């Protein structure tokens, strides 16, 4: 019997690593700090270049992860402390209280329907709403409600408890306490992923002040059939369809002010978003403003060529200097240099989407694991061993080890699982 392995982070990389390990018969703990696994990929509508719907290819893996008898899902949980060494790690994990008992919850959703409190939804990046008792998204795994104590009327004011009244199995437990568990594992895979940088660091783009400037992830939610507008691309200011959309690349990437690195996937992601925009709104005018269009992966260049020829999406080489709001219409004026003409130009668009760069999530409890100056985990021997961190027995996979797209994250995750499995098998439980 092999010793278990811990995977931290329930995005596609973490899920893949856990599934690979479990397929080898190795017990795997998959710890995820939000209430559901799925990560960034769950927020995507379609994936490039195949235009598969992200949920279609992700949710079966999520179901696999939850059903597999070798995987123990610890969602809404966080790693507190890591002690020990390779082959023999002792990890303290805090299971945060959902105030709903996982074994009893059916995922029927009655509690959510009845809850009187609506708050902005994190999954929809504040553009839609959820209740104080909620699932992050309808295909969440596990499909168990979670109570947000900051907004729940019971926790803030001591009243309501409607969810408990209507729950058919009595799964709601307001007395639930956080639970600390200690896991003994042979090896650890860190796959904690990323957020987007804060585009307010570039005030001249007007994010946060101009109503119709969005981040790429926000636009992705707008375009998604599971999003706040069920896939209708409408402007925040007037709920109208935009006639023109500008996609601006390298926002908070390749920028010495906050992040000199390239975020790898945003070029092709924006091409995808422009294509989706054209599919949703056939008459819309889409322009992508870029520095270099990094369509480097398999099928990406062909995808980019299709965007130009088949979908008539315009590509302008020139990083806009600023985005100004037109008072009244709330349209946006972009000032940019079209480098192919060497001229300064202005153009007015209805909507602007910023392809915001990657900001790696912090990995606090892993105090021994060294990071480089941008927050990515250092891989001291990246050529021979592209998943090993400087600490024996701790591996890294996905964006936490460098910005990358889904195929590369999945490949690195499997590679990490391979290395972790050798240690797990060596140390008998």
């Amino acid at each position, binding site marked *: 019997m092999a010793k278990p392995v811990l995977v931290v982070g329930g995005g596609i990389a973490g899920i*893949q690593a856990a599934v690979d390990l479990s397929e080898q018969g190795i017990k795997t703990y998959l710890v995820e700090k939000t209430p559901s696994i799925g990560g960034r990929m769950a927020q995507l509508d379609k994936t490039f270049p195949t235009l598969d719907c992200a949920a279609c290819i992700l*949710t*079966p893996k999520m179901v696999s992860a939850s059903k597999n008898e070798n995987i123990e899902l610890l969602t809404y949980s966080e790693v507190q402390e890591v002690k020990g060494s390779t082959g023999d790690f002792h990890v303290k994990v805090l299971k945060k209280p959902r105030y709903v008992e996982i074994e009893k919850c059916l995922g029927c959703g009655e509690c959510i329907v009845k809850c009187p409190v609506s708050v902005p939804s994190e999954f929809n990046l504040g553009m839609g709403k959820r209740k104080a008792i909620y699932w992050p998204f309808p295909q969440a795994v596990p499909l168990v409600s979670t109570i947000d104590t900051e907004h729940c009327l019971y926790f803030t004011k001591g009243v309501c408890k409607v969810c408990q009244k209507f729950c058919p199995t009595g799964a709601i437990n307001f007395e639930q306490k956080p639970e600390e568990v200690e896991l003994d594992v042979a090896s650890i895979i860190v796959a904690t992923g990323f957020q987007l940088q804060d585009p307010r660091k570039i005030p001249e783009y007007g994010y946060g002040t101009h109503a119709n400037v969005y981040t790429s992830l926000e636009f992705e939610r707008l375009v998604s*059939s599971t999003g706040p507008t069920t896939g209708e691309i409408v402007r925040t200011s007037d709920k109208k369809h935009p006639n023109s959309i500008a996609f601006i690349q390298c926002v908070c990437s390749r920028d010495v002010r906050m992040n000199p690195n390239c975020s*790898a996937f945003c070029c092709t992601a924006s091409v995808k978003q422009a294509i989706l925009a054209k599919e949703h709104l056939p008459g819309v005018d889409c322009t992508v403003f870029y520095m270099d269009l990094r369509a480097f992966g398999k099928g990406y260049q062909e995808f980019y060529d299709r965007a130009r020829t088949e979908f008539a999406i315009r590509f302008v080489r020139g990083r806009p200097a600023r985005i100004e709001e037109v008072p009244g219409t709330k349209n946006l004026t972009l000032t940019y240099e079209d480098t192919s003409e060497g001229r300064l130009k202005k153009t007015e668009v209805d909507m602007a989407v910023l392809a915001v760069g990657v900001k790696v999530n912090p990995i606090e409890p892993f105090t021994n694991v060294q990071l480089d100056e941008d927050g990515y985990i250092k891989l001291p021997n990246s050529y021979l061993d592209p998943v090993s961190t400087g600490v024996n027995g701790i591996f890294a996979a996905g964006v936490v080890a*460098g910005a990358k797209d889904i195929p590369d994250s*999945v490949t690195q995750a499997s590679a990490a699982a391979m290395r972790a499995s050798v240690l797990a098998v060596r140390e008998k439980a």
Partner: protein
Amino acid sequence: MSEEPKVGVFVCHCGMNIAGTINVKEVIEYSMTLPHVVDAKEYIFMCSAPGQDLIKDSVKKSGLNRVVVAACSPSMHEPTFRRAVEEAGLNRYLLEMVNIREQSSWVHSDEKQKATEKTKDLIRMAVAKASLLEPLEDLRFGVQPASLILGGGVAGLRASLDLAERGYKVHLVEELPTLGGRAARLGKLAHVDMKGAEMVGSLIKAVVSNPNVTAHVNSEVTELDGSVGYFKANIKYKPRFVDAKCTLCGECFRVCPVEVPNEYEFGISKRRAIYLPFKEAYPPVAVIDSETCTRCGECVKVCEPHAIDLDEKGHDLEAIAGGVVLATGFSPYEPPEGEYGYGHSKKVLTLFQLERLLDEDGPTGGELKLEGSTPRTLAFIMCVGSLGTTKNAHQYCSRMCCASALKNILTIKDRYPEVEIYTIYKDMRTYGRGDERLYERAAERLVKFIMFEAPPTVNVKSDNLEVRVHDATLQEDLLIPADAVVLAVGMSPSQSLPKVRSVVKVGCSAEGFLREAHLKLRPVEAPADGIYLAGSVTSPKNIVESVMAGSASAAKAAALFGKEEIRIEPMIAQVTEEICSGCAICIAMCPYGAISRKQKDEKRVAEVDKALCKACGACVAACPSGAMQQAGFKDIQMMAQIAALTEKRGA
């Protein structure tokens, strides 16, 4: 069949992929009118947990015994729904999956009404077949916990090491006389103080010293039979004509009269017919190239340890493996003669050749010398063979060339600061970790970057090379009087790929690299179970990405080997022995040699080897008596589908 079929129809929206074109409500209503259908449900993502639960609940509540799922392609989710059906308590093969995404919604997205009608037709056909489905049992086979790995480059080496450390036997087969692949021919690697051969050398050492690995160098797999869990390979060892007694004294190299271009130096220097591929080659034994050897025997005369045997014969070896990893790499794009002056001047070279020049173990000892002198002005032309820049070029991006070229540019600037370098590029794709910094450093060192839309031209003159390019940023035509031109060539599919594919049944994508099971979520697996794809065999990759893919494919193979037995789809050919006349037409038809004859009572009948049958259906079509049927695709089932299609549509 004993019981009345009770069919449930489940229609998926697939987000907007299906629902955006097909009127799902109408389809559901129609489905309920079909014979034997007792339940019809729809859901936004049928493959998700709630979707699968919907199917399971319906099976229980409505007592279904046949399930039709109308959704995406079976190649995507048939296994998912089969599992769901099995969890609901039915035999997993009582599922019929209809593709209404690729085959209706996506192809007819502009004719919504007609697409909906077509969807109804497809479902009607599926329901007709589903009513006649029979329960089937998976075929079970044991798994050989050993791996066959084709290709001894970084991807193959890493996969070998991982599987060997994990405890599984590995047969590593390399067609060249040395392990190491392309990475061993690189100079200094980016971001580290190590050259390619050093890095590969330590990997080789770890691999060959692991007792679980048997390395077959200078060998090829000439036959591969079997399928996942049990493959039988014939490995043909090609004679080296030199054995392990070789001390690498080099005497034989001196006396050999034959000189040919050295492919390990990409043609910029020569080697003899007896040679050592490179300093760090493994095994560290000389080898004779039988195609160019004249058999003069001079080498034998001078070989003190008598290591040379010109009469050595090759031999064949059989290897059994449960899974196969293809890691056969790529070939550098070879520009046709005249493209950017390639072949017309010794001063036009490829990036691979430049790596050799800059390597201190290379033909010039690491000195950047072309025809005796160091160029003062160097032009790098990027995207050669990629991005459709020239007539012969591929459409795709070769991914690694931007960073590779910049790495070499910085090396040159370190050693020869006075050299003027112009980098003529279409797009600067330094996407990798730390690679943006290479671009910045090159700009800081005053390398000039010229962006082109129309590719540059190289005019070979007597004393220099005139590079003309229209700079798209300055809108100026520029003339660069370069002393040498380096072409940053891309990656082409390996030249040995046709040979490999004749042995291993794997498909290619449109551009000629091997096709993976799914581009996003299954990038290291071939569509066929038991075959894994690692490294640049599927698409251009740099070293780190190839090594990751090697480990990833090992993880997939390890998952296979860890199982005691595997289950294979039972849709294979079956003989109804009572009807079989023993005509043997099927035996001649079978491309996999899976059918033989056996004696049954007084007659001879056909017999199908379940392990070898690939369910292609050729024998079924050829059988004149209908004795050969394919499980899951029986004649009555197919006829029912055809009849359902041609009948007039109901109300």
